[in-house]
């Protein structure tokens, strides 16, 4: 990304955090998510958790080779009229 975008992003990041620290939305926080800048942490940690947990599930449980279903499939079926050989896109 170009330098301009990075500077803009940096301003948004710092700006959104500083703004809430200066002027909190919840004046009397009762829950965890009412503390200032909670959502910044949530975004960062949540994203990392999604990536690691999903990749872990995929690696140890769900991922299979691309031909997993097709390598054992039966002979080519009889095609209904009009669906000729080859893929349309």
């Amino acid at each position: 990304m170009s330098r301009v975008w990075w500077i803009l992003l940096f301003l948004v990041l710092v700006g959104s955090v500083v703004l809430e620290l200066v002027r909190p939305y919840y004046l009397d926080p009762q829950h965890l998510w009412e503390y200032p800048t909670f959502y910044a942490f949530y975004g960062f940690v949540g994203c990392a958790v999604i990536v690691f947990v999903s990749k872990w599930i995929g690696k140890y449980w769900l991922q299979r080779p691309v031909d997993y279903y097709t390598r054992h499939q039966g002979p080519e079926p009889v095609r209904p009229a009009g669906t000729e050989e080859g893929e349309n896109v």
Partner: protein
Amino acid sequence: MSELPPLLPFFAGAILLPLIPRAARAWFFLLPPLAALAMLAGLEDGTILTVPFAGLELVPLRVDRLAMVFGWIFSIAAFIGGVYALHLRDTGQQIAALLYVGSALGAIFSGDLFMLFVFWEIMAVASAYLVWARGGSTGYRSGMRYIFVHLFGGSLLLGGILLHYGTTGSLAFDVFTTQTVATWLILLGFALNAAIPPLHAWLADAYPAATVTGAVFLSAFTTKTAVYTLARGFPGWEILIPVGVFMALYGVVYAVLADDIRQLLAYHIVSQVGYMVTGVGLGTEMGINGATGHAFTHILYKGLLFMGAGAVLYATGRSKLSELGALGKYMPWTVALYMVGAFSISGFPFFSGFVSKAVTLEAAELLSHYNVAMLLYLASIGTFLHTGLKLPYFTWFGPAPEQGYDPKPIPWNMIAAMALAAALNFFLGVFPQALYAILPYPLDYQPYTYGHVLHTVQLLAFTFIAFWLLRSRLGGEPFIALDTDWFYRRPSRFAYEAGPQLVARAFGAVERAAYGLAAGIARLGQDPVGRIFGAPAVSSGRGGTDGSESRSTSFRISLGAMILIALACIIGVVVVTMSGPG
């Protein structure tokens, strides 16, 4: 004021389309959506059209605010999809799409369960064609699985409807208040079309296999019709709250693993429909407003995302992240317009998803379901991560693939349709009251509060930072991820062995036995005396020396003997008969 169901232009269009010159059919496709929009404008709230049929009072048209929201967006989506498909010269797909949209509208405006079921089934068949039309083995097999799963769902629905009719004597489609076997079967039938796990695998299986234009239509109608039926029949069924939250996160996890860009988007349909199902489960006026409002914006931005992914497939013939990258310079307009859809689905301020998600989240918070709201925020993070960051980064930016490109130019109409959808997404984001005004219940809500905007910006900006740090782990991998379709795809091999193969083998065994018997009889006929009485075949000694000659000679001899025996028998019978008494 008209009292005609708005599906009529679509069904009439499907009949008339083949009569139009081939080159004009794509343009003709735009007329039914426009006619339907005009008819919707003329429909009055509360209109009910009843038709007596076989002793039943059928209701092909029931107009209320809930149905109207879906009526508007379905007609708009059909128009945008029609513009996207203007370059298409495929009458089959055009007719299927018209029937599909028409039956979706029919289902929305049905006032009774019988009509609903009929349109439900037409939808299944018409939409399956959009998968089949892709051609090739993958499209054909995917389409077959799609239609079978939907016929199974339709059977659940029909069973539920019949049981419900048998016990209550009513076919009216209103809120189901009691939990019976019948209502649960109906709920399961709806849940299958809403792609609620574990009944969702058809979606991620079929949508990536559909045609470029077909997938745009598929993304809009089936799941949202199901959301409508859930909102109509099952508001406040609390089971739908955890189910909806689970859906929202389920789609996110699978989207991490998806390699195909349209499969990634398909899993995000599951995720986004989770918001709507949660809203229905909350059941309050705010919750139903959230579900319907989100369905409205979802159709606009998800259609836009599928159009962008379809443009990539159209231009390159590829749809896998592991085979894409650095494509942005070939299609700058597609990238820019896709990003509008990505910002919308991620809930950026000033884009449509922001204003509709907020209503569902507000509904959850008003009922003190804070954990629900927090988990839906987590799903939002995942949504931005995939559709807003991972997909565009590894498709249009990021490292170039090993195999170079020669992209086809993208037709102007595809760009125009994307621009239209993007404009509507932006419009609804900036003027949320335009959306709120048509929701089923009055809504006095302002999404643009200091806290809401600030928290959303924090959430999304820091998601980006985490993505940027982890991006090396997020590239597409050439794998598939097992989903619940494993339960019918994996055993299919054994079913094939136990079903068609077993029958084929049995036929083979019987066939061999029959041929063996015939061969035995033939051998017996060649030399019956020798075979029966054990005498060796008599060789006349005349003719050649090969066996066939000698066998045929012996056969002639025994034939002569048999004729003599037969003659003797006949003479004997005649003598006995004539010498008898009388």
